[in-house]
Each structure stands twice: as C-alpha cells, then as structure tokens.
C-alpha cells in the first residue's frame, strides 16, 4: 500500500453510539404554535414567568425569517421547522424519579452502553452526572454530597420548581431570547437541561457532568444549561453528547449561559460526538448552539474547552463577555471534520473591563470532504484599558478534498490594547508518514500520533480522564481517514 493511496482512503468506521432505545415516549405532535408552548410549559408545571418568557420568545421568533443565518461558511439544506416535534419524554418519567431505583431500567441500560457512570459506584470516578434523554433530564447522581456543600446541581425543570428566584434572575441574562434565530427558538421551546449554582466561597467538591442523548426520531433537542458561580467559587463542568444513527438530519439547538461573579471561576468542557452522518453525508445532527459566559465582576474567569468530533453541521461560538476588571476568558478548541461534516466554530471575546485578558487556542482538523472554519471575534471596547488577547488558530489537513478556513475578526476601540494573532495551516505529509513507518509505526498510529501532538495544547485543558477519552474519540473519528 503506497503512502499516496493511504492518504486518499476515507473513514469506514461505524459510529459507535448509533443504537436506539425502544422505550415508550410521550411525543408532542409535530409543528410549533402557541399551544405547543403552553403544552410544554404545562407538562413541566412551570410558574407563570416561564410561560410568559417562552411566549415572548415565540412571538419574537414569528417575526424572524425562518432561515438559517447565511454568514457561516456552511452549506445547509433548508429546515422545515413545522415538521419537527418540540417535545419528547420517556413516558415513565412522567412522575419524576426520586432516586435511581425509580428510573426506567431501559434508560439506565442506554447510559450503561454509553459508558456513563450513573450508579453510585461512579463515586470512584468522582463525577456527578445529570443525564438528558431526548428532552428530559432523567437522573442526577451525587445530589446529597453536593447538597452538603451547598451546591445546586439538578435538571433545569427541577430548578424551575425549587429555585424559581434564581432561574428568574439569571435566565436569559447572558443570552437574551433575541440573541439569534436558534437562541430564540430554544427560549420558546426548551424542555430541560442542567442547572448549577455554586454558592459564595464554595469550591465544588467534584467535577459536574451532563450527558445528552437524542433518541426519538424526528424530534429536535433543545436543552438549556445555566451555571452560576457566586463570589469566590469554583466549578468544573463537562458535557458529552451522542445520538443514534438516522438517515434524516436532526436538529439540536441548545443554549448555555454561564455567570461568574467576583473572583469566581467556571471551567466548561464539551466532548461533542453527535452522530455525524454516514460517509456519503447522509443524516447526522445539525448542531446549532449558543454558548456564552459573562465575567460579571472583577477577577472572574471563564474557560471553554471543546472537543467537537460529531454532528453533520456544527455552528457554535462559545464566548466570554469580560465585564469585570481583571477578568479572564479562555477558549480551547479541537474541531474535527471528516467525510462531509462541516464545522463553523470559534469564539467571541468581548473586552469591557480594564486589564481583561483572553486566550484563544483553536485546532481544526479536517479529512475526507470535511469543511472546517474557525470564526472568532476579539472586541476591545473603548473603556477596556490594557486589555490583552492572544489567539492561535491552527489547521491540519488530511488528504486533498477537504478545506480549512480562518475568519478572525478583530475590533479594537482602545489604543492600550495588546493583541496577538497567530495562524498556521499544515498537512500531514507523505514524508512524515514515511518517517514514522520507517521507525516501525503503522500509518494509523502515525496519524493519531501527529493529530494528538497537534491537539496537545487543548487536551491539556481537559480533566485527565476526559483527555484520554477525547484522544480515543479522535482516533475513532479519523480511523481510515487515510489509507
């Protein structure tokens, strides 16, 4: 097998998480109207302010053109928003489970297959998990231990019931329902998600984690995550995502809002492995996500780390508004596209406070017919004295049919700002493969060696056990991408 043909072969590996779970579901009729929104709100037994907010969002959505924003470097078929169902829940959770023993065993089996440590034995791993199945949160582990520390970690629905004041105060405070098309849609119809509140001075005693799973056909998943870190607190949060293999595209439009108060730190990591579609570009998840954090007061810090290997289309820009003086924003990203996957992803760092600092490290890997774009905005407002930004955007190409693009936007309104931007594009060369193989390393191992080396700066930001997981995920996603 010559190096050339090796560099031309494309991934044949099957998506590992493509199974579906046969479980009785409560699915709302397809289509979107005020009744559906009232139905969702009613099913969740929401207080009035939630319904009002949803309806405001919906009415605003009606005024928008039902088109996906065209500025991204993506080719997307039109989506029929009336053909989707906006609510699906496993029937057995209707009377919400109070403990794991009340959760449908089939659900537990599904999470078992996904390797999620739902049972308490996961204590060893020290990770608290909230699992969202289609649109409904089904189980949250370690609740008691977290309670002792004063940490609130629960499904969004539960937070609405038990902590309505917090929800009302912060919901939409970072991403308003008018923010963008998908954020508006999410605000109207979101059904669940995760909620975290870390009280003043508390260092969350464990990693928090949410797993998202789309199961039902022809449903959209719209979850919403809200994390609030009060003064002098710390939290590290990780989300993972998978979906079954289906021929049609499925829509996922989530919103994540982070609020960091004075001296608080939030680390948010994503390992996204939604079904990417098959090797001909059939099926796969459309992933339109709005993620934003605000460093509300001084010395707050927010870090986004993302490993994006799944989805047919990824459209997401986890951003940080650096409002407090001396606040810090970080974005570390590995985005991989193979076959016909497309990704347009990056970040926005909005510097408002004095001496604010941001770091952007973006690594794009593209193989097959994949298209990978980095799109990022660094904005220094007039009052942001001595703001600093460092950006590094690297692209790695595997094969000759793929594309890598970089769209950096830099807006500076203050002369004292210091901004650095570095970008590189490289290709795994035949010479590099030959060199590795001459030393006895197979082509597959050589590629993963080079890819992992390329991503090292980002993997270092992940909690140890997830860094290993991320590495494996890249190997699987690239398997046979050359050869």
């Amino acid at each position: 097998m010559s190096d050339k043909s090796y560099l031309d072969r494309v991934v044949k590996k099957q998506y590992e998480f493509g199974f579906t779970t046969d479980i009785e579901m409560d699915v709302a009729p397809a289509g979107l109207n005020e009744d559906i929104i009232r139905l969702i709100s009613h099913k969740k037994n929401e207080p009035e302010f939630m319904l009002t907010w949803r309806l405001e969002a919906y009415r605003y959505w009606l005024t928008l053109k039902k088109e996906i924003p065209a500025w991204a470097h993506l080719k997307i078929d039109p989506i029929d928003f009336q053909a989707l169902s906006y609510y699906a829940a496993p029937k057995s959770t209707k009377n919400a489970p109070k403990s794991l023993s009340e959760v449908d065993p089939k659900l537990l089996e599904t999470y078992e297959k996904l390797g999620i440590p739902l049972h308490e034995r996961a204590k060893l791993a020290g990770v608290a998990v909230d699992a969202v199945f289609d649109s409904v949160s089904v189980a949250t582990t370690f609740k008691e231990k977290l309670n002792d520390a004063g940490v609130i970690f629960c499904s969004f629905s539960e937070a609405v019931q038990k902590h309505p004041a917090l929800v009302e105060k912060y919901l939409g405070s970072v991403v308003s329902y008018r923010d963008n098309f998908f954020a508006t849609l999410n605000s109207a119809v979101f059904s669940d998600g995760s909620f975290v509140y870390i009280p003043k001075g508390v260092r969350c005693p464990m990693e928090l984690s949410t797993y998202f799973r789309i199961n039902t056909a022809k449903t959209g998943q719209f979850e919403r995550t809200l994390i609030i870190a009060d003064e002098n607190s710390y939290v590290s949060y990780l989300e993972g995502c998978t979906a079954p293999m289906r021929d049609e595209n499925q829509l996922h439009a989530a919103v994540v809002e982070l609020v960091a108060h004075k001296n608080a730190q939030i680390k948010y990591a994503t390992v996204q492995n939604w079904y990417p579609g098959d090797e001909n570009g059939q099926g796969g998840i459309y992933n339109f996500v709005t993620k934003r954090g605000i460093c509300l007061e001084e010395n707050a810090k927010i870090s986004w780390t993302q490993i994006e290997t799944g989805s047919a289309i990824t459209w997401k820009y986890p951003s940080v508004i650096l409002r407090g003086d001396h606040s810090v924003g970080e974005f570390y990203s590995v985005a991989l596209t193979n076959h016909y996957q497309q990704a347009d992803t990056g970040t926005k760092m909005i510097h408002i406070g004095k001496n604010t600092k941001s770091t952007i490290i973006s690594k794009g890997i593209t193989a097959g017919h994949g298209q990978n774009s980095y799109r990022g905005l660094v904005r220094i407002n007039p009052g942001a004295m001595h703001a600093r930004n460092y950006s590094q955007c690297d692209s790695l190409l595997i094969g000759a049919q793929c594309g890598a693009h970089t769209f950096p936007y830099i807006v500076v309104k203050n002369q004292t700002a210091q901004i650095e931007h570095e970008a590189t594009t490289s290709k795994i060369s035949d010479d590099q493969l030959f060199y590795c193989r001459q030393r006895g390393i197979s082509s597959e191992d050589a590629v993963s060696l080079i890819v992992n080396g390329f991503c090292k700066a980002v993997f270092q930001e992940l909690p140890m056990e997830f860094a290993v997981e991320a590495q494996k995920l890249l190997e699987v996603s690239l398997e046979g991408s050359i050869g």
Partner: protein
Amino acid sequence: MLEIKNLHATINNTEILKGINLKINSGAVHAIMGPNGSGKTTLSSVLAGRDGYTVTKGEILFFGQNLLDLSVEDRAIAGLFLAMQYPIEIPGVNNSYFLKTALNSIRKAHGENPLDAFDFMAIAKKYLHAVGMDEKFLKRSVNAGFSGGEKKRNEIFQMLLLQPKLAILDEMDSGLDIDALQIIASGVNALRNQTRSFLIITHYQRLLNYIEPDFVHVLLNGKIVKSGDKNLALEIESNGYADLSILDKQ
C-alpha cells in the same frame, strides 16, 4: 543478510539504478561512495520502501525474504533502519513519545511486552548520553527546529534505541563538524557486532576515518563500478571520482 540482485529502479520513468549487485553478510560494514547524482539516495530509498521509486527489474532479499513485498513498517520491524540525510520534522509530536511508540510497535510485532514509560526512559537516557544530548531533547518535537547536527544525532540516537539488524546511513556526514562526526561514528562503532550490518553511504571519505569499513564500493551512474577494501576510499580521496568514470564507460 541482504542480497541485491541486478536492481533497476526509476523515478518518474527516468532510470537511476541500472543493475546493482551487492551482498552484505552479517556483521559486515559496507561503504558506498559516489558523486552527486550517482544514485546513492535512490538506493537507500528503494531499500526502505519510500514512495515515488519504481523497481523495474531485479530483486532484494533480506534474510531470505523478498524485501520488495514488505510494507515500509514491516521492513523496519524486520530490522532495517534508515538514518536519513534530511530527517523529517514532525511539529507537535514529542520526541520521547514518538520513540516509545516506535520501539513498542516493533516489540509488539516481535511478540514482546511493551515498555512502560519508566523502562523506556531508563534506556533512552543511556543512549542520550552516548550521542551527547541532554534530556530536554526528549521533550522537544521530533526534529522540529533542530540544527543539522542535532537532527543527525537524533537519527543515531534512534538507531541505538531500535537496535536494527541492518542500519543504512545515508550521507550522515554532510554538513557536520568533526565533533559531531565523531559522535556519529562512535554510535555506529558501539553497535558493531557479529550479527549487525551497516551500509554507509557517503560522498566523502572522512567519515570512514572513524568507521572502518570492511568493504568499499564505488557507485557511478547507477552501477557499482569498483569494489575493494578500505584503501579504495583513500584512493578516491586523493584521485577523485573522475579517474573511475572510465570504468563506467567500459
């Protein structure tokens, strides 16, 4: 161990090797000398299985096995090592991680247990000293930003670590000062034994002052035109290749 019979090879349909015959026994050190364009690097590339070269005639046996049937990595696993004139840079890949992967791939293919990080480091440190480099070198990316001399020493370091049965050194002396040259030579000499063979490809005689070859061959225009002992190298050093070109025309 290695037998090359009537080897013809082309690059882009241009014939570069025009009937090479060479037999290397276990434990022997052979030197191939020749001017630029004589086919030296083509020969080493064909032996290692590099892409872009087509063998049009002849065969190569390595321990009785048809070498041309083996993939690049299988040749390495069988014990063939090529120290390159221009070692390739792999930015981002840590030198020690690269070498550990290589060593363990070969060990695995031979049914041996992989070395863990501690065992690997112990061996690596031993050989690092042999090539006069410090441990920081292991943490740097493979050849990235290395000076010419460091790259060559890295090749020898890898050779020491992988303990090949046949090491081909392609113009290792080009662009090196005497100190580096001596380090490379002592690396080779340290590995010389009854079962290991070397094929040293060079333009100049000076490396052979430090590595004493058993046989010297002169490559001209794709053919070995003269073979002899180490004195042939000295002869070429004083008379140049021009005198020998007449042999090529015979």
